[in-house]
């Protein structure tokens, strides 16, 4: 019973994803193109990074310039995720020898 229900749920979600993937998408009357899955409607932020990253940050690797400069705060967050994980492992896998009863 549970398995059948889960199968129905799974198929529902998958069918939505499949619909989006093969959907012809919105029609842009100006360019005569369809926006299908995988062809973005906008590319201006990508182009900004490609054209300005080298000049602004002085890094040849644009990916690193995004990771550590434009979105450096996210990287700090990800680094603290690792820090949190380490602390959590240390906390959960500690032995209760030093704890009071």
């Amino acid at each position, binding site marked *: 019973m549970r398995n059948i229900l889960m199968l129905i749920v799974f198929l529902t979600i998958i069918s*939505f*994803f499949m*619909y*989006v993937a093969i*959907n012809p*998408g*919105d029609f842009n009357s100006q360019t005569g193109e369809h*926006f299908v*899955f*995988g062809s*973005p*409607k*906008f*590319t*201006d*932020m*990508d182009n*900004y*990074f490609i054209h*300005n990253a080298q000049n602004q940050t002085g890094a040849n690797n644009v990916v690193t310039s995004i990771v550590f*400069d*434009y*979105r*450096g*705060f*996210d990287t*700090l*967050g*990800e680094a*603290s*995720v690792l*820090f*949190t*994980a380490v*602390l*959590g492992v*240390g*906390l*959960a896998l*500690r*032995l*209760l*020898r*030093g*704890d*009071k009863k």
Partner: protein
Amino acid sequence: MSVWDFIITNAPALAIAVPLLGAFLTPLIYRAGRKTALIWVLSVLGFTEFLALLLVYLVNTYGIQVYVFGGNPSTLAIPPDSGGIPIRIIFTVDGMSAFTALISSTIGLVAGIYSVASEKGRGAQDKFFALLLLLVVGMMGMALTGDLFNFFVFLEINSLSAAALVSYRIHGGKAVEAAFKYAVVSSIGALMILFAIAILYGEYDALNMAMIAERMYQTGFSAMDMIAMALIVVTLAMKCGAVPMHYWVPDGYGEAPGEISAMIMVASQASLYGLFRMCFTVFGLSANTHSLGWFLIILGLLSMFIGVTMAFLQHDIKRLMAYHSVSQTGYMLLGVGVGLATLGTSAFNQYGLFAMEGGIFHILNNMLYKGLLFLTAGAIIYRVGTSDLNKMGGLAHTMKFTAIFYLIGALAIAGIPPFNGFVSKLMIYESVYQLNPFLAVVAAIVSMLTLASFLKVFHSAFMGPKLYNVKEVPKSMLIAMGILSFFIVLFGIFPNIAMTYLVAPAAHALADPVGYITRVLGGGA
């Protein structure tokens, strides 16, 4: 530039950076001794609280605050050469963000004071306090950020640190199991959110919430947006513990130490903030807010009813309170859901906004009285050593202050005047009644059952013959409980203090997505 100007300019960044720095330094400082580390942790938490208060003041005085990480100057959201798009990570602090940041830092400070005594003598406290600070960082970051990916990062910090803290009392592996369940559920949720963010980023080439909302409004709400919205809304509903995705709540809250239960409860309110932010600001302009609002209302009704009826069954004090958090979350979803369902119609100004104010006021009240109740539960467990209500009795003979604090919290959560719970519940009943009387009837029944189950706890834990010869809990725990009780009584008798400075700005900020978007996209300073 004086220090004061410097702090005011950089307040949104400092509100995250200071507790983060504090967390990184705590394991190092703990080597100098517990007392030094405690002074450090408490002063960091105090400074964070000050920054959150400052943010509330700044938002109420000068409107929405924008802070650009790495920008030159830090208020320039859109670089002039970018063609009108935000490039960097932007913190956008409006009334609702400042409100959530304030309750997060407050519960952090209270939990910090409480754990001075309650965790004394346990191992790995350097990690415990660092994780406590990181949990505050996670909550504050989720509240303050205006960037979707940044939101995900802080959601991850929030979930991981909360899961780790749940496992602090190993408790024969039970706490670790609860932490594992919490970690699995929240990791799957976080991955779903990441997936949704990837969809939105692929479609709109932006990660800023305002920019995505603007572009979604321009190009219309597509099928992909719908999937992204469903992923985000359902995941955040799970993270805030709405029925039928609440199963991790009793496990997690039940096994965590008392002050950590209170903090995780507020961490799930931060997810609730994320849910409201997404529903109103990101999808509010394009999606069908009427059906979205009814979705939240139905989740809220289920949470209220199932939460409270399951709570009555429990005989473990922490699990009982955990189920009550589920049912209290239902009130918030109900209040704000009514606001969302009526958004854009004439009914919004008649009662929708008032319902939202009620729901948001309930978040604040829930933080106060639910936090207090979790702290009293922690105090009982600290002295008695068991969380089983069947083994308790007669504690009011010796733990008088704990009993009084418990009574204040229980009466407040049951909505007995003159405590603060009554005010927000009244606001929710009165406004929800006008959308559909059935909603208000369910809410009132749930309130009655809440009172019944807290009387059960009071009777079995505090009344009856003296079974345990225990002392009152140490002072720091009493101080922490006293702070929360003071605000419960204060906001019960003068609800307009909270209404004016916190709740009304928050509700208006949520109801005005256009203001949010134009503040970020419509020119720099």
